[in-house]
């Protein structure tokens, strides 16, 4: 709660650091000084900063995120829709990334130093080196243009979600694969695994229970972080696929100097990050008995 409050102050201040006068923009080109002044007063921009902040916060509690400077429409419904879109994209991305990343990482660790391990590590490192927007474009070239299987833009049909999800998932998959592999490898080298083997336990039991439970702890953090990255970093993917998501909305708003919109978008993202962080911390709590005490 404290973090949220603090964050909102920070966001508010940062937004007001952005150069450019919203009133001038709102009034439009060719407006006279008086008109700009009138707009300023109507927007409450003449009042001291603290008051403006409180007005904003008050508006938030009433579900009013303000009005967009460019479209003159209330921001909330638009933001909600874009947010929902990005959430769908990020969720499908992270699910894909976790499924593939975890399996590949575990297999690589268990078959350490074999061909499959080396190959997946090479693929993983390529995966984190390729720019996400390039991958998107390549996929479009191959699958949409050449093969004509999948649509390029939009988010109407199920198929249209496919390419963007894969694109956005690629980077995270690689990260999760690497993290999983190194975590599992580390656990495999621990003494208690030798004890479990000496007890004659079935290999599957050892791997699933003894090893994974320990290995998952750092992996969960990574997954959480990656989801956060996906939410915020979706902007590149959304641009390639012209996907109506939060990232593009944010970039466009910055470009248009639409301060209320920018403020609202960043606040939304901040809230999401805080929630994700909280969830990851809770997961940590549940997995590691040593933390439960504290």
């Amino acid at each position, binding site marked *: 709660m404290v973090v949220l409050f603090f964050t909102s102050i920070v966001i508010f201040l940062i937004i007001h650091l952005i150069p450019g006068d919203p009133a001038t923009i709102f009034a439009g080109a060719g407006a006279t000084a008086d008109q700009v002044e009138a707009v300023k007063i109507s927007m409450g921009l003449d009042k001291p900063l603290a008051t403006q902040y409180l007005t904003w916060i008050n508006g938030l509690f009433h579900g009013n995120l303000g009005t967009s400077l460019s479209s003159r429409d209330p921001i909330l419904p638009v933001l909600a829709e874009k947010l929902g879109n990005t959430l769908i994209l990020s969720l499908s991305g992270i699910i894909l990334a976790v499924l593939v990343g975890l399996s590949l990482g575990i297999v690589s660790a268990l078959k350490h130093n074999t061909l499959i391990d080396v190959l997946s590590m090479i693929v993983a490192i390529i995966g984190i080196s390729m720019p996400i927007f390039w991958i998107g474009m390549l996929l479009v070239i191959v699958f949409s243009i050449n093969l004509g299987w999948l649509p390029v833009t939009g988010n109407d049909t199920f198929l249209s979600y496919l390419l963007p999800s894969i694109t956005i998932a690629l980077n995270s998959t690689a990260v999760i694969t690497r993290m999983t592999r190194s975590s599992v490898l580390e656990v495999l080298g621990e003494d208690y695994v030798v004890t479990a083997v000496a007890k004659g336990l079935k290999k599957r039991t050892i791997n699933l229970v003894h090893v994974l439970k320990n290995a998952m702890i750092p992996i969960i953090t990574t997954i959480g972080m990656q989801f956060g990255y996906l939410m915020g970093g979706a902007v*590149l993917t959304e641009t390639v696929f012209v996907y109506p998501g939060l990232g593009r909305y944010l970039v466009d708003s910055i470009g248009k100097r639409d301060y209320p919109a920018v403020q609202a978008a960043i606040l939304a993202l901040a809230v999401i990050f805080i929630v994700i962080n909280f969830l990851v911390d809770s997961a940590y709590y549940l997995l590691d008995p040593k933390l439960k005490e504290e």
Partner: protein
Amino acid sequence: MRLLKRLAVNKLAVIGSVFILLFVLCALCAPWLARVDYGFMDLYHTLQTPGGGHLMGTDAMGRDIFSGILYGARTSVLIGFCVLCLGGLLGAVIGVLCGFFEGKLDLMLMRVIDTMMAFPTILLALLVIAIIGPGLKGAVAAASIAQIPRFARIVRSSVLKTKKMEYIDAYYVLGQSKANILFKHILPNGIAPIIVQATLTFGESILIISGLGFLGIGADPMSAEWGAMLSNARTYLITAPHLAIFPGLAIALTVLGFNLLGDGLRDALDVKEN
């Protein structure tokens, strides 16, 4: 050096180094390798596929893509260095302050650093651009700021770890000043993870800068910057896919090179993640 030997054993690291060398070569020798200046627009030969005088074809304005790649390498090298110096130094300073003095300063700064790290780099960069304004300067600032937390963390943990070592107490008891101890003993021990991070940072900054260039808020879309070139390529994906392939490939291979080398260095220097 023993280090070079250990590194050479790792074949991937060697490949990475080769890529980096290529990258640096392109950057250095751009004026000689390029047949034409990137700025030259041959309006009679727009959107040409590779071949016949243009190794990688031309773009919508008749500019030679190959020279774009070469000059883009230059831009990237310069930017990479700037980011490394700015972000690395600032981050290191913060790290040293936190690690050395600890206490409330440490707590406060680390909270800020952690918050920064929780943000996706792109978002952070976007925010900085929003405040400073689009353009190369903004992009460099954004990328540098994004790297600060990483360096701060690494340097801080190095300092903390070495500080606790008993031989530091020994030096202190023997009368060496705190500053002396810091520079002579603590910092040299922490060099290894910093080098690894620096290598990885170079690659990351290229990704960020090109990402911003792609969005149109980084480098000048007309300049030789790989991200900007990719942005221009979008409109012609159907008619001229080669516009997208080459700059992206350049980014990918260069970043791959840095990542491979960074990983190899990490193994050779036996650096562990925090």
